[in-house]
Each structure stands twice: as C-alpha cells, then as structure tokens.
C-alpha cells in the first residue's frame, strides 16, 4: 500500500506556475485572479486535448486558489474551467470568440442552468425559453443563483426550445450580458468574490449564431459536463480539508491546556483523527481520477464524488469549528468557511438528488466485489 500523503498529490510541478501567476495579485479580486491566470497561460494549459481539463493540472489550480483566495473567488474560476470552457469547445462565431477570450483571462462567461421557475434538481421543469427563428433567437426567462452573474461578459444559458418535458427539449444560447433585455440582481453578501446573482431575460434578441451546438443535445451535454464539475468540486474539497486539518493541527499543538496543549488530549486527537480518516477516504476516491487522461467520470462516479466531497467538507469544517472554540469565529475563520462550504452539498447537484440518483445504480454498486 502506498504511504498516505500529508498533502494532496499533485502539488509541485503544476502548482508552482499557478503560484507564480498569482504572486502580487489581489486574491479577493476575481477579475484580477482570472486575468492573471489567463495571462500566464495557466487556463489554456489546463486542456491538453483542447476540450477537457487535465485532472492533475485542475487539482493543482484549485489547491493553489483554495490556499490563497476566498471561497467565492475559487468558485468563480472553478465553474468556468470545469464546465463553461469545455461546453464552448468546438463552437464557432461569438461562442468561439468568448472561449478564446476566456483562455486569455479577458472574458468571463457564466453558466446559467438553474432556472428561476423550478427546482435546480429537476431541470425539466425549467421555463426559460428560446424561440428559434431564421433570423435569430429570442430568449425569455430567468436563472437564479448563477456564479459570475454580476461580473460576466456573457452567460451560457440552458433554454427550452420545445415544450415536451424531456431532456431533448433544451439548447444552449450565449447571451451577452449587455444585450437589451438582460438584467442582473445580486444574490446577497454570501460567497464574496463569486459574483453570484440572478439573471433575467426579457425578449432578448440574439443572432442565429448565439445558439450553440445541436439543439436537443444541450441537457445531455450538460449532464456529462457536470460530472467534470463534480470531479473539480471533489479535488477542491480535499484541498480545503487538508488545509483546514493542517491549520487545526498546528493550532491545537500551540493551544495551552493544563500542563501541555490541546493536542496532548486523547479525546481531541481522536476527533481530529476521524477527520483524517474521512479526508483520506475522499483522497482515495479522487486518486484514480487524477491518473485519468481527462476528468470525465461516469454519471454515478460523479454523484458518489459529489456526496462524498460535501459530507467530508461538512464533517471537517464542523469539527474544526468545535475544536477551535471561539477562535473559529475570527474574520475568515472556520465558522464562516463552514457556512459557505455548505455549498458543496448544493451547487452543481444537491445531496438529496445525488442520493436518489445513486440509489438508481444500486445493482451495479452493491454487486459483486471485484
């Protein structure tokens, strides 16, 4: 059995250029971080096959961002590199121009899937509609809780072009943020740096080339790509857990208690050790993905990763808050991180919906041990 590692595997080779690119950049400014990553060629280098991110580079990027930036800023980068850029690959016209701008860090594109009208877990209820015609398309509807909504140049919008409640009824539309009829509202103060907000589209007239890919394939394409977002989320979650655990260990070792420190107390060490176990279970789930040529998991692997990442972050963050006591409530401390990190169990797939999907795979998952 290989020796367990103290930090996530990929560091070194791919992490150093990210660190160099971000040196001197304000880590709380998502635009500055994105531009710096683009200018240094980090974003382009993520895609050796031109479409999907290389898992080790993705892991290094998210680990470095997690170490230095607020959660919201990492989220802003994560959605774009794991989901938007691959979905735009192979496009032509304005989408291709947007993609090139994104690779240089000059353009920000939001992913607008979760509909204002329905549950994010059942996209078939979405009512955002696009009317397709010979001279263009008209977009109407709304999308809620969209990362980068308040800062984007354009939004990649999942819109219904047919009425049937079926996965083939959707297509992708690229809507410029400054097009007449597009408005954006803030989603509040949580997730600073993520630009999360609500988008509204009222009779937005778009040229024919604003419609991307093959109509009818959009939801299927998204279902596949969201698996990559789940891989990214798991890689990010483990980086966050390792970071919290390293900080917690150092703090416990310094914290006076009786004749020694809190670290000397068996009860404290046991609670800490349980977090190590959970984090190493997540590491083990991620390990085979890091060796894959591209970060595209099967649907069920994506769901397993999503639930595992959410539960591990929640467990580690909760214990970090309990073990640190009042110190957890310092500015930017574990208490605040725990609140925002609850998004690992919601954004890109809520845990309840993931569990429902996993149960559908019971035969294959509960089957013979190989």
């Amino acid at each position, binding site marked *: 059995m290989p020796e367990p590692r103290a930090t996530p595997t990929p560091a070194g080779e791919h992490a150093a250029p990210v660190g160099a690119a971000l040196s001197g950049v304000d880590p709380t400014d998502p635009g500055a971080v994105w531009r710096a990553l683009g200018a240094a060629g980090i974003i382009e280098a993520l895609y050796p096959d031109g479409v999907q991110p290389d898992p080790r580079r993705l892991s290094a990027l998210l680990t470095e961002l997690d170490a230095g930036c607020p959660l919201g800023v990492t989220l802003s980068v994560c959605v774009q590199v794991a989901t938007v850029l691959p979905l735009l690959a192979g496009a032509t016209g304005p989408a291709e121009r947007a993609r090139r701008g994104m690779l240089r860090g000059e353009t920000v594109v939001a992913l607008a899937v979760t509909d204002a009208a329905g549950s994010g877990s059942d996209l*078939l209820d979405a009512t955002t509609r696009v009317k397709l015609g010979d001279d263009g398309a008209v977009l109407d509807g709304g999308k809620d809780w969209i990362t980068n909504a308040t800062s984007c140049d354009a939004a990649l919008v999942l819109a219904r072009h*047919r009425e*049937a*409640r*079926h*996965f*083939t*009824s959707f297509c992708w539309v690229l809507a410029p943020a400054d097009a007449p009829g597009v408005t954006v509202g803030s989603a509040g103060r949580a997730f600073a740096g993520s630009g999360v907000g609500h988008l509204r589209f009222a009779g937005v007239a778009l040229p024919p080339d604003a419609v991307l890919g*093959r*109509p*009818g*394939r959009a*939801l*299927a394409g998204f*279902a*596949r790509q969201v698996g990559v977002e789940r891989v990214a989320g798991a890689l990010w979650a483990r980086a966050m857990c390792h970071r919290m655990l390293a900080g917690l260990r150092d703090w416990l070792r310094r914290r006076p208690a009786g004749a020694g420190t809190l670290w000397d107390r068996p009860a404290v060490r046991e609670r800490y050790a349980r977090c190590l176990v959970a984090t190493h279970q997540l590491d083990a789930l991620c390990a085979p993905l890091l060796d894959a040529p591209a970060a595209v998991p099967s*649907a069920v692997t994506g769901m397993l990763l999503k639930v595992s990442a959410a539960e591990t972050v929640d467990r580690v963050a909760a214990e970090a808050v309990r073990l640190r006591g009042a110190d957890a409530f310092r500015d930017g401390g574990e208490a605040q991180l725990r609140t925002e990190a609850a998004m690992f169990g919601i954004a890109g797939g809520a845990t309840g919906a993931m569990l429902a*999907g996993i149960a*559908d795979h019971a*035969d*294959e998952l509960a089957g013979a041990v190989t």
Partner: protein
Amino acid sequence: MNTEFTELLRPFLKFAGPEEITEDARLRDLGLDSMREIELLFAIEETFGVAVPDDKLVDSTFATAGGLWGVVEELRTPVGGGSR
C-alpha cells in the same frame, strides 16, 4: 430486438425485474426517468457505435423499447445494406 439491446436496457428500467422486455413496453412505465434516459442515450451510442441524429432526438424516440430499437437498428444499417 436483439439481446444485447434488451440487456443494455434492463438496468435503466427499475420496475422491469427479470421479465421479458417486449417491443411495446413503455419505457416510462418500466421506470426510465429523464436523467437516466440521458445515460441510456450515451450507453446506446457507445455500445452500438452510433450517433442519434437531431431529428431523432425527440421524446417519442424514447417512448417504447421497440421504437428505440428501431432507431438504433436504422442507424446501424449501412445505406443500401442489411443489418450488421
């Protein structure tokens, strides 16, 4: 319908059990939901080496086992030739 197809279909149909899957079996009634329908589309394309064209990407394609098999078989058949 060939056996490879019905066996590929079975894990997606949570209410099918071990019963025979007939051509007129309605996939929704046998428990196929929309998100699993997407997985089924990918599985079919991968297993049979076909790409379902835009005009067949509609809800009616996925209505019955026989209807879906008909589309797969048509895509597998080289123009002017018989079934492979």
